[in-house]
């Protein structure tokens, strides 16, 4: 469809979540903004291929995700966010202890395989349905579900189970038992 004013506004309205997705994927604020810029250029250049009434955010996320993938293949892992450059992109610096916890979380997220990380972000943070996330990643819905489950499981192992030894076995047992009443 042609680029109408309302479509342009909708694209602009997607920018904040595109940036959040890009930063979550790449762990690097500058690179993330370059990704978003390239995504917008591609989207506007190919706007005729956007189906009116279809999911615009999902379309934009698909473009960004594919760009990130091809870019990632080119670069492999250069020296990434070891110095916490992601945190520097934040406007408000978290308090010290929260900051540390945040860095730990960010580091654990970076340890996930890329497939799992993107699935977890799309479903757990961007709020896409499993179906939309599957369309964005070009895979089956069941594949997305299992990636999300594996991502959660690995994060909890990295963040909580390994560290549980620090609190002694009683805490660990209590933590495990404590979870049985949830959903």
């Amino acid at each position, binding site marked *: 469809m042609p680029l109408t004013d309302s479509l342009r506004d909708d694209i602009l309205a997607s920018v904040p979540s595109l940036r959040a997705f890009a930063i979550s994927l790449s762990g690097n604020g500058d690179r993330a903004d370059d990704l978003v810029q390239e995504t*917008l250029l591609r989207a506007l250049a190919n706007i005729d291929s956007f189906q009116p009434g279809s999911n615009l955010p999902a379309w934009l996320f698909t473009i960004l995700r594919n760009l990130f993938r091809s870019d990632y293949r080119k670069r492999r892992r250069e020296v990434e966010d070891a110095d916490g450059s992601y945190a520097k992109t934040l406007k408000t610096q978290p308090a010290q202890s929260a900051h540390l916890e945040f860095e730990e979380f960010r580091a654990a*997220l970076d340890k996930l395989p890329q497939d799992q990380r993107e699935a977890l972000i799309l479903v757990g943070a961007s709020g896409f349905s499993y179906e939309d996330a599957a369309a964005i990643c070009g895979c089956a819905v069941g594949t997305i579900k299992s990636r999300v489950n594996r991502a959660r499981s690995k994060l909890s192992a990295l963040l909580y189970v390994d560290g549980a030894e620090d609190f002694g076995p009683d805490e660990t047992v209590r933590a495990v038992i404590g979870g049985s*009443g949830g959903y």
Partner: protein
Amino acid sequence: MKDVKSKNAAPGKQGGLNAEIQSRIGHQLRAMYDDVVRQGVPDRFAELIRKLDGSEPNPQLGTAGDKNDGRD
């Protein structure tokens, strides 16, 4: 410990994930993400879209230049 864990683990669920841990992970993930979302649209992107919009003549809109005085 192993016994306690496996007893509480639902069959088919990996590692018997604790609901509290999962909710903390979900919370941290969204906090990280929303922190960026709340930054809004940086000027560079608003300008980019405005420029592209103005520079590409769009016959179907007819009045592409109405509020675009090229204020650069």
